[in-house]
Each structure stands twice: as structure tokens, then as C-alpha cells.
């Protein structure tokens, strides 16, 4: 990762590549979590009796998707210098 930072710095760009990495990594899970909760709310509105079951599965899906976004914030520390 330092090679890319050096290359970027030589052309006048400085900063943290990890921040850019997290920004890119948060796009997919952002869309995904929006889809999960959107569909969950719609399902709960269509059938309020099933709200408990829908809420449970909604939170499971949210945690699985959020894991990918959090991998994005942790990996720069793992791979970085």
C-alpha cells in the first residue's frame, strides 16, 4: 500500500488510502442495508401479523451485510504499514 501512497504523493496527492478504501467499501453494504430494511418494512406493512418473524430475519440480514462494511474499515489497519 505504501507504493501507491508514494506514487500518489509524487504527483501532489497526500492523505490516507485507508479512508478511500473504506469509502469504496461502504457503497455496497449501504445499498444492501437499504434494500434489507426497505423490503422488511414493506413486508411488515403488507402483513403485520408476521412482523416479529420479519424483524428477526431483518436484523440477521443487517448484521451479515454490515460485516462487509466493517471489514472495509478494519482491513486498512491489517494490511497497512
Amino acid at each position, binding site marked *: 500500500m505504501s507504493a501507491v501512497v508514494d506514487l500518489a504523493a509524487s504527483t501532489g496527492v*497526500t492523505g490516507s488510502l*485507508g479512508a478511500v478504501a473504506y469509502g469504496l467499501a461502504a457503497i455496497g453494504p449501504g445499498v444492501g442495508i437499504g434494500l434489507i430494511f426497505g423490503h422488511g418494512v414493506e413486508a411488515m406493512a403488507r402483513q403485520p401479523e408476521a412482523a416479529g418473524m420479519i424483524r*428477526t430475519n431483518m*436484523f440477521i440480514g443487517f448484521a451479515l451485510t454490515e*460485516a462487509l462494511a*466493517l471489514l472495509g*474499515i478494519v482491513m486498512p*489497519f491489517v494490511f*497497512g*504499514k
Partner: protein
Amino acid sequence: MGAVVLLARAGFKTPTTEDFVWPCITPHWRVGGADLCINRTVGLTFFTAIVVVVLFLLAFRKPNIVPTGLQNFMEVVVDFVRVGIVQEVIGERGLIFVPYLTTLFFFIFVGNVLGVIPGLQFPINSRMALPIFLAILTWILFNAVGIREHGVWGYTKMVCFPSGVPWPMYILVTPIEFVSTVVVRPITLSVRLLANMIAGHLLLTIFFLGTAYLLQPSITALFAVASFALGVVLVGFEMFVAGLQAYIFTILTAQYIGESHSAGH
């Protein structure tokens, strides 16, 4: 990572992963090549274990038929694990796993909540040792259940060669299924818990250290109020994430056990 932080005045030290490493309090104890000592993480892990044991002992020492007080509260949570997690996901055959899953849920929850308790303020699951150990326990458990239920070859066939797939597809499906079940599951389980706790601790540290840094007699004192308010909101969010991560770890463990027991619903 060498983050370049541009501020009006130099001097704010952003928290890094070095802030998760604590110095040893006791002298080092060498045993068989390992270098052991007690630092803040280890001390807090012992504290979590003691809290969980004491909670259960106090609640269920002399159980009444009609529960009151602490027994009532603990019965609500035990029922939540028993009905909401185990019976929902595994079914009736899963009741043998309720003790382990209840302990797992409580231990992870108390360990995560330590991140917001004033004075302690360090989630023990933000160091990889504990999440990977719990994930390995889960891995041993669901593989052992599968092997005991179906035999070694039967379980391998169930994992690597799922039914209902035309046989030429096995060239593609078998490596993916094997890796995703045997290799990826413990990694994602542990990293999900670890990353949530690291991110939460870093967020709280940034906002409260930032409040202290901004509270200097200049225009930035106004922003210190905003930083503090956001920090307080994040404490509430961290409590929610603590419970959610404990719930997710437990329900995924239950789901893996249920899948090993009988493939598919």
C-alpha cells in the same frame, strides 16, 4: 496508516490500533514457549466471566415457581435464547444446546457492553483472541454435530455435494461449498464481531478525545458541544450494537448447528 489529519492547530493524536494494545500489569510468566501476563484485556475477560457466573448464580440460586426480581429478568433473557433463537432455528432437537448458547450469548453481550461502561470502556472482543476462540468452538460444535449425526462420509457428502444439483455442476459447486462451510464460516463469525467492536471503540474514542481537544478557549469550543452530543448518541448506538452482535453470533451458531443436523429446512 500514516493518516494526515489537517486541523487548525497541530496536536490531536487520532486513535490508532496501537490504542488497543495494553501493557502488562503482572510479571511475565513463561510456560512452554508462551509469554503470558495479565493486562487490561485479560483482566476484563476474567471480570466478564465472573459477572456472568455471579448473575446466573444470584438469579437461579433458589428458584421460585413464580419468579420475581432478578430471577424474572434473567428468565426473560434465557427464554429469549431458548425460544427465540434455538427453537426458531434448530427446533426441538436443539434444546440440548441451550445451555451453551445461553452462556455464549451472555458472555459476548457482557464483553461487548464493557465498551460503554464508564471506567472500564474497553470491549474485550476488540482483540482477535476471544472472537476467534469462540468461532473455533462454534466450528468444532457444528462439525461434531454433523459427523455424529451423519457419519464422516455422510457429513462430507452433505457439505460438499448438496443434493438437487446436476452432477456436472459439482466441479464448480463443491469447492465453493466446502470453502464456504469449513473455512469461511469461522473467519466471518470472528471478524464480524471483532470489526464491530474495533469500529465502535474507535468511534467513541475519536469523539470523546475530540471533545477534550476541542474544549480549548477558542471558537472550537462550540464544536466540542456537537462532538460530545454525537459521542453520547454513539454510546447508545454502541449498546445496541453490543446486544445485536451477541445475538447474531448466537443465532448464526444455532443456524450452523441446525444445518449440520439436517440439511435445509
